[in-house]
């Protein structure tokens, strides 16, 4: 794989993570525990859609095949999607959505911070833009983690279960495949072993404040980066792409 191919694959994956997060969070519209949180989740979803568009547009520019952001988003199937398994897991209850946000955003904000100095200038610019939003999301989700974890017995039990359930998907975040390796050596992408240490430190802190237990690292599920997904992604794409599949080339 050439260094340019690795960059295209990497940028597309970042768009995939963002768009799948956007889809999941927007499922809360009409179902939020309270109006303000519904707005919060849809605001986050909107930020993710915007970020996905920037990543996809950039990937399209790089590969020079004339693909637009919409083409990349709507005209690929599950095996072409390289999002991590963590982001495609169902929302569960509100606590589980918050737990996933904290686990993912802690990773994502570190990833963006590392990329903000990449010699791939456009990627660095997108990262610098997105990190501001990511930080806001993380702050909000971390505060909720504390309210739920340090809340009632019921909220504590539920959010602890959510962390335990999602933990198996966190290993993949730090598995460096050839794309990650080339990104690191050629484009100053993050060193995932270092990033993992930072992540653990931050997660330790977030869980401690929320009086939650950190699960033991056990068997970790993975495969998303390489297009091997859980059954959940297919449903997300079926819903998201239904219009393009029914009326190819349809415009707003």
């Amino acid at each position, binding site marked *: 794989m050439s260094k340019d191919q690795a960059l295209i694959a990497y940028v597309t994956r970042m768009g995939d993570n963002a768009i799948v997060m956007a889809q999941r969070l927007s499922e809360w519209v009409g179902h939020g525990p309270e109006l*303000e949180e519904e*707005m*919060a989740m849809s*605001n986050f*979803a*909107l*930020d*993710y*859609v*915007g*970020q996905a*568009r*920037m990543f996809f547009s950039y990937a399209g520019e790089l590969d020079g095949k004339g693909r637009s952001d919409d083409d990349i988003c709507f005209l690929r199937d599950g095996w072409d999607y390289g999002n991590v398994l963590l982001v495609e897991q169902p929302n569960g209850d509100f606590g589980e959505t918050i737990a996933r946000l904290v686990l993912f955003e802690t990773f994502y904000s570190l990833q963006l911070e590392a990329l903000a100095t990449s010699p791939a200038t*456009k990627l*660095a*610019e*997108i990262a*610098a*833009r*997105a990190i*501001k*939003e990511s*930080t*806001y999301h*993380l*702050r*909000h989700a*971390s*505060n909720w983690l504390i309210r739920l974890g340090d809340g009632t017995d019921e909220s504590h039990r539920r959010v602890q279960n959510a962390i335990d359930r999602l933990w198996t998907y966190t290993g993949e975040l730090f598995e460096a495949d050839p794309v990650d390796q080339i990104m690191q050596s050629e484009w100053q992408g993050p060193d995932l072993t270092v990033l993992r240490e930072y992540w653990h430190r931050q997660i330790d802190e977030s869980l401690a404040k929320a009086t939650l237990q950190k699960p033991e690292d056990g068997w970790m599920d993975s495969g998303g980066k390489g297009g091997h997904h859980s059954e959940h992604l297919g449903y997300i794409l079926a819903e998201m792409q239904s219009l393009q599949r029914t009326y190819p080339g349809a415009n707003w």
Partner: protein
Amino acid sequence: MQAARKTLETSAWEILEQIPDPEIPVLSIVDLGIVRSVEVDGAKVTVGVAPTYSGCPATEFIEDSVVKSLQSGGITLVSIRRVLSPPWTSDWISDRGREKLRKYGIAPPEKGAAARGRLLGDPMATERIVACPRCGAENTEKVSEFGSTACKASYKCIECLEPFEYFKCI
């Protein structure tokens, strides 16, 4: 030639200053700080526009209104360049823009709040005093970090009981 270029640039800025932000019409897009540059090349004008939020649904609408407004102002060759760097933060809002926001009933963002240290500091240490834009009281309460648009949070004043919006610091 130099003079003509100057005039074209000046009149472009004058027109841009009249274009309202679609979601906060009291602010012009220049007050908001999203017009980064006006470059003149012969008869062609290129406007650099920075989006506020990645997913701001108004981005395309704003770009469209820039083109249309300049064209109806007699500048026919217009192109838009989207500027990502340096990213927009609430610090880009002009002083005049802040005053307009306050008069409109939206508490303006604190200046300098987007500085890195504050932004990435302890997530719990970011509570700040937001004065009520109507009565000026500092006894206000955050209702939600989120509001009617991506760039605003919801507050209420404990003194005069008015709900109001706060332009988020990002």
